[in-house]
């Protein structure tokens, strides 16, 4: 029996609304929960002081810096390699068995649990290459972890640039590289940046891969060979060892807020960029 189209339309709409509302509610309640537990702990000195007594007292300054530096190293390494690979796969080679294998490999890597990357990074960077527990080892490991995501999102973004743009660019006498830098990349940038933001989010929130490779030293990192603790690792240790739940929630709140700020900032910059190019 067919439902009356109007009734069907109403039911479908109501169903979809419920799903959307449930999703938003769950997300919001997580954020509200963390902020309610975390915000009361926060004051200016929580941001500017280093942890004292394993994190029972003091602030989380060194872990904020640790997070920033580690993420920065990871993105600075992974973004050029990832975008470069995507450009090669889409613009510099025909689709063939090799490109399909590379793509399949990237998809598989993207699905590997981060703790495996941590173990790999520990064996390769920390012990074999002798970088020790350090910002460098952690950054490289995170870079490996986010590389597949950056490759695949960049590739999709580049592929979605109309073929006609490439044709026009070539017909006006551009070399392939000029076509890539002046036409394809500007048009694909919003998609590429979205992929990088996702990766930054993953890096900031990562614990398993980082704890094995960057260690968990509480002091401020002084070079890329210093061991360093990120906010996520700090939160994990505070909560897991029962050192200080309130400081753990404070750290969590800062984590959530910084991811929020990064997203807002990037969207703002992208908006300006898009306006300039269209």
């Amino acid at each position: 029996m067919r439902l009356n189209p109007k009734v069907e339309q109403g039911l479908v709409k109501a169903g979809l609304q419920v799903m959307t509302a449930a999703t938003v509610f769950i997300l919001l309640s997580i954020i509200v929960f963390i902020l309610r537990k975390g915000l009361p702990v926060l004051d200016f000195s929580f941001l500017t002081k280093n942890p004292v007594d394993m994190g029972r007292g003091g602030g989380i300054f060194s872990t904020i810096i640790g997070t920033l530096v580690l993420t920065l190293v990871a993105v600075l390494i992974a973004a050029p390699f990832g975008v470069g690979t995507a450009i090669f796969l889409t613009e510099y080679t025909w689709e063939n068995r090799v490109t399909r294998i590379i793509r399949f490999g990237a998809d598989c890597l993207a699905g590997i649990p981060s703790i495996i990357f941590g173990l790999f990074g520990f064996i390769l960077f920390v012990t074999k290459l002798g970088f020790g527990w350090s910002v460098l080892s952690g950054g490289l490991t995170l870079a490996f972890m986010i590389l597949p995501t950056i490759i695949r999102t960049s590739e999709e973004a580049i592929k979605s640039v109309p073929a006609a743009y490439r044709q026009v660019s070539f017909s006006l006498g551009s070399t392939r590289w000029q076509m890539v830098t002046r036409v394809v990349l500007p048009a694909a940038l919003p998609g590429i940046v979205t992929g990088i933001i996702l990766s930054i989010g993953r890096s900031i929130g990562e614990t398993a891969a980082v704890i094995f490779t960057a260690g968990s030293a509480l002091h401020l990192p002084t070079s890329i060979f210093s061991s360093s603790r990120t906010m996520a690792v700090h939160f994990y240790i505070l909560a897991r060892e029962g050192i200080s739940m309130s400081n753990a929630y404070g750290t969590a709140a800062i984590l959530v807020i910084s991811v929020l700020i990064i997203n807002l900032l990037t969207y703002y910059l992208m908006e300006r960029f898009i306006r300039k190019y269209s």
Partner: protein
Amino acid sequence: MTTAIAVREFSHFFGSLQTLRRIDLDVLSNEILGVIGPARSGKSTFLGALNRMNDLIRGSRTEGTIEIKGKNIYDPDINVAELRRRLGMVFATPVPLPRSIFENVAFGTRLSGKKNGARLVELVQECLVRTSLWEEVKDRLDTSALKLSGGQQQRLCIARVLALRPDFILLDEPCSGLDPISTAKIEDSLRLLKRDYTIILVTNNTKQAARVADRTAFFLNGELIEVGPTDKIFTAPNDQRTDDYVRGRFG
């Protein structure tokens, strides 16, 4: 009139599919050569062979030669980017790049990295004037080219090609998506441009060839059936198939 492009025994293949069959054709300086023929007759492939845009398609292969000023453009030492600047191309669908009107016209010049600011502004103005677009856009050169109408976009694409200072202009069904008024404007531009450029106009619209072309070439199944003065092609062609096509009996 002197020969500007000499096509000799030129064949083209996409993989195992032969798309042009031993074409022999001279393009004369400062003429408008109309190229007509039904769909899949090879006329667009012919155009793409002249500026080597066909190279970009996977499995593209050629035999024979195309000489411009005595130099085969398929020689290995040819700079293809430079070649494409000398044979500016206008496509069937106008494709403005997602940037301002000014930057669209300046695009090719910026690629070669020559012109300084003041001369570039002059050049852009000159090209927009020659395509009679200047009066319509002079107050909004820095706005997005995507906001222009279809006809304006196509004239912008022609201006963008003129800014390359090419020797040839290749047009691939440039009016197929345009209304009669926009089409008339573009045909007027072509007649004016003939003084300075050699123009090859591929068109689905035989009447358009009759209106603007000095000579017309008729392609069928990858073969050049015949080429001659437009009047002759349309009134007393040598080949029965040409006659059938221009009279609208097939195609």
